[in-house]
């Protein structure tokens, strides 16, 4: 039933506690948006889900298998099931945009070149960047790089998508396009998505479930409707944007 389950995850960097007994569950087929203030460890949390960071303590269970204790080699086959959008895109800067998006396809499929090129063109068009195949990442704006990175994360239509702030830095119109794209892709292909954001509007429009990260713990995990009505003072402060 639970695709992903994090149990009592602790992570500290040089004695600085970031995740502090975190619990989270993600069901197959749902879109979960993780909200939280800047610097609370949202990106760190997401990296735990594919073993880029291992917890100091606790379990990261994918269908019951603990990724925290999985040997490096087995992690690689697990990672093929995921698509990951990094907060700053992380496109390979020695490759063109087209080559970047073709990269996972070349590595993990035996598709002919023409088919790969077709997928690249389709994905780029979907994120609103048709025809930039031959540009280098450094020739694009930050928001365009982010969208190209999104196209790369979607290239293989992976079972589980992890998006680190997919709409940060985008204009409102593009934000809506990207939101619809994520929703359509995930629902259409019956995938699962974990989306990180601090954009409340995006969360309310996109999520099946909203989780709120605060001081190293998930304070609550509930539907958007009940999240808005949450009695927790931290959630209400976040929703209203009140200063401390």
């Amino acid at each position, binding site marked *: 039933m639970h695709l992903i389950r994090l149990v009592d995850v602790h992570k500290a960097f040089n004695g600085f506690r970031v995740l502090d007994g975190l619990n989270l569950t993600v069901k197959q087929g749902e879109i979960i948006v993780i909200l939280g203030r800047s610097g609370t460890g949202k990106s760190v949390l997401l*990296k735990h889900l*594919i073993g*880029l960071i291992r917890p100091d303590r606790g379990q990261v269970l994918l269908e019951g298998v603990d990724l925290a204790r999985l040997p490096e080699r087995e992690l*690689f*086959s697990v*990672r*093929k099931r*995921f698509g*990951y959008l*990094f907060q*700053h895109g*992380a*496109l*390979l*800067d*020695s490759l063109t945009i087209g080559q970047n998006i073709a*990269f*996972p396809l*070349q*590595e*993990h499929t035996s598709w002919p070149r023409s088919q790969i090129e077709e997928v690249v063109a389709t994905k780029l068009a979907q994120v609103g960047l048709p025809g930039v195949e031959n540009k280098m990442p450094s020739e694009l704006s930050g928001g365009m790089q982010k969208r190209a990175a999104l196209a790369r994360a979607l290239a293989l239509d992976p079972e589980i998508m992890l998006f680190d702030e997919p709409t940060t830095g985008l204009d409102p119109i593009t934000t809506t396009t990207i939101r619809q794209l994520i929703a359509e892709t995930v629902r259409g292909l019956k995938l699962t998505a974990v989306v990180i954001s601090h954009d409340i509007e995006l969360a309310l429009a996109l999520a099946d479930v909203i989780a709120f990260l605060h001081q190293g713990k998930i304070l609550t995990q509930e539907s958007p409707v009940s999240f808005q009505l949450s009695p927790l003072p931290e959630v209400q402060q976040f929703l209203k944007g009140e200063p401390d």
Partner: protein
Amino acid sequence: MMFVRILGRMGNPFLGLLRELGEMAILLVNCLLWLPRPPYRLRHFFGQLEFIGVRSLFIVALTGLFTGMVLALQAYYGFRKFGGESLLGGAVALSMTREIGPVLTSLMVAARAGSAMAAELGTMRVTEQVDALLAMAVHPVHYLALPRVLSGLIMVPLLTVVDVFIGILGGYFVGVMLLGINPGTYMQKMVEMVVASDLYNGLFKSMVFGLLLALISCHQGLKARGGAQGVGLVTTRAVVYSAVAILIVDYMLTALLF
């Protein structure tokens, strides 16, 4: 107490060195393990061969020319004292093949290509491009380190051949054209004094140096953390460690081989 503290201070760099060596050994083993596994990414590999080899050609040729020429000048000064000028050709060729060719070529490649490797991989590390590779289930050792290490292993010996050849030409130019040594004697002594094993040993050395400098540079690059400063630090380290390693290993190999 004092004594323990002093020991501790001495121990830290030593332990650090041991750890670095251990990590590099692991990187080398990982490269070997990944070597036979597909995909082979030939175009990517040729790109590295070109970067390390073809684009180092000019600087290596220039180095070879001037070292050969200056060797001839210096050897002439020494040999003249006992009337041994005729040995000049052999002396230049021997020192180029056995020692100066491999060492100087490797040092130049470390400065030119090793630094670039460390800076590139370091930047990839701190901008999460290495994490992105991992997330796409592509191993950074397979994709980044292996082609560079292989290219170092292949290209540094080839560059050494160029360096030695041009160095010998430079020596000939100075010895015969400028210092007036009989060209026949010059060539004859050279052929007499240099044997095939001198060449092979020199090439073997440069293979080891090429492997070392690429391994060190990749290792440092992949270890980068922080930002621009972190990248700068590992780039400097890559060049310094490569140079020191080349010189130390050169002594050890020379003591063992010759």
